[in-house]
């Protein structure tokens, strides 16, 4: 299969959906002429023109609200918020309007829109450009939350998100844009709400998403040499969560570790862990372990940043604790 980078996979998804549906349009800061802060919308302004690839002023609240309104009237906007850290500005529109409009009107409206953004640490950009905030959105019923880890998932899930009739928060990871991987040709769509077993194993289940999946796979490789067989589940869609795939795995391995880059307290790992306990308590042979960032803002200095976010070593340690 051909290999392309994560950013290219996303770019293809946008192009294909724009070709397929004339209602799809893009808006956001520096997405046109500049092609996006991480290059995802490169070439799209040239191809589709300024009416479908709209560079906006720095006005996240208005970008989000405009996307909602246009979606309510039949368009399919894909809005980009350059960093998830800037979602603060968009929160009212996203959480009080997009998430609730359909429900509050007794199901009479829909707001089929995608909010693309990116998050995560690793580039030593400091506390305002490195956060993992997915748990802000998973706590709001009415929002779907998607976080792909591979180019194939990035493409397939973005296409599914654009076709979905609900507001979707689509969170990319800044350290994944250049990662390459196989992506099927043709109309590759990955359904929302379906987790993926990225590695089969029998001793312990590591549940993760986004970049941490790759870290977990690295850890699994090292543990394999020590005779520990790790199953790695990529949640892919945090809301709605495919708890069945996770529980099925835990029923097989009887051990569970949840790993993500967001801070531990309030992070989505707590939710996954609790659902495992609710649904598979009798199958667990040990406590569910969490691997997450330390509960501090992401510090700038590379040594501090690396200390705060999860590494393969912290996953290895947690797996061994889960097996102890």
């Amino acid at each position, binding site marked *: 299969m051909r290999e392309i980078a994560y950013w290219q996979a996303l770019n293809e998804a946008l192009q294909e959906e724009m070709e397929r549906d004339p209602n799809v349009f893009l808006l956001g*800061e520096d997405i046109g002429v*500049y092609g996006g802060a991480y290059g995802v919308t490169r070439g799209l302004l040239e191809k589709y023109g300024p009416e479908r690839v709209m560079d906006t002023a720095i006005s996240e609240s208005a970008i989000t609200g405009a996307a909602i309104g246009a979606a309510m009237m039949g368009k399919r906007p894909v809005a980009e918020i350059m960093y998830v850290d800037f979602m603060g500005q968009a929160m009212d529109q996203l959480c009080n309007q997009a998430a609730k409009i359909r429900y509050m009107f007794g199901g009479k409206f829909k707001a089929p829109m995608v909010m693309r953004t990116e998050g995560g640490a690793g580039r030593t*950009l*400091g506390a305002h450009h490195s956060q993992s905030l997915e748990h802000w959105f998973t706590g709001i019923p009415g929002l779907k939350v998607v976080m792909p880890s591979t180019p194939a998932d990035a493409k397939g899930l973005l296409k599914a998100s654009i076709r979905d009739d609900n507001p979707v928060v689509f969170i990319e990871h800044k350290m994944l844009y250049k990662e390459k991987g196989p992506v099927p040709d043709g109309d590759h769509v990955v359904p929302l709400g379906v987790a993926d077993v990225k590695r089969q194993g029998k001793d312990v289940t590591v549940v993760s998403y986004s970049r941490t999946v790759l870290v977990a796979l690295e850890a699994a490789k090292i543990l394999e040499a020590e005779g520990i067989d790790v199953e790695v589940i990529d949640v892919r869609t945090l809301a709605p969560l495919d708890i069945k795939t996770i529980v099925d795995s835990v029923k097989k391995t009887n051990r569970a570790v949840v790993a993500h880059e967001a801070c531990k307290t309030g992070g989505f790992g707590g939710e996954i862990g609790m659902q495992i306990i609710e649904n598979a308590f009798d199958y667990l042979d040990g406590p569910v372990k969490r691997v997450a960032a330390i509960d*501090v803002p992401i510090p*700038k200095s590379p*040594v501090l940043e690396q200390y705060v976010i999860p590494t393969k070593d912290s996953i290895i340690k947690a797996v061994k604790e889960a097996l102890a």
Partner: protein
Amino acid sequence: MENIPRDKLLGIYECMLRIREFENKIYYLFIDGFIPGTIHLYQGQEAVAAGVCANLRKDDVITSTHRPHGHAIAKGVPSGSLMAEIFGKSTGCCKGKGGSMHVGDIDVGMPPAIAIVAGGIPVAAGMALAFKFQKKNSVAVSFFGEGATNEGVFHETLNMASLWNLPVVYICENNLYAASTHIEKAFKITDIAKRADAYGMPGRTVDGNDAVAVYSAAKEAVEQARAGKGPSLLVCNTYRHGGHSRGDACTYRPKGEKEEWLKKDPLIIMENMLLEAKLLSADGIKAMKEKAEQEMIEASEFAKASPLPAPEQALEDLWA
């Protein structure tokens, strides 16, 4: 200019030189791999930081942005601790926790810069509110780019600051582009200072490459605030010489635009003014340049020689 003391003018010029030398140094240190992350440089806009801050006292405060090095130098953050912070070293002004986009030093009246566009605008109002409560005659000054004036919080805050008659000065550095986005693509209006009218405060525009013009206009605004006569908005028209951040090749700029602006380099304008007024000789200029250069060499040596933080330091400073 006639009524500005020579010392003041030389101080402003020296400040501009120091900013230019600092940023030039950072540029090369970045290329050489000494600086992790990204940087947003200030070359071309020196007259704004220097001209405004020449009106401020140590007990006055500023808020700054993702492009804060110039503001930091002008407000008095020592170049060594500033450079070390950008390197992520433990001797940095924020102990390596902030980085380029969050430099500051409260001892000289600069809280850490805020990289969320427009994030400093309400914070400056809050600091001014405290000064008002405390009956201090200190002033808060908020620096931001023209891009920030399209955030809702700019409008919310200007209204509130005006209503509450706060001792705050809003300095909008209009450098024509917010990242790649030209003002024509983000504004229907051309005169951003007019926005002040909507909130009942004075709004003015000055040539932001003319340090003396900036100084004089800011002087009025700062004196007004200090005298309890309320906030104002000062728009300084200027241009950043480099890209928005590291790795920005500026392909969105029309050919020749930068060259035109380089002719209006604020340092050249200031030098010519000082030479013409015979306030400084060519030799004097040369000596000041060498001094600034030497200072920044020392700052970079300090940053290079400084230790990285111990990893466990990440756990400190969360709670008061």
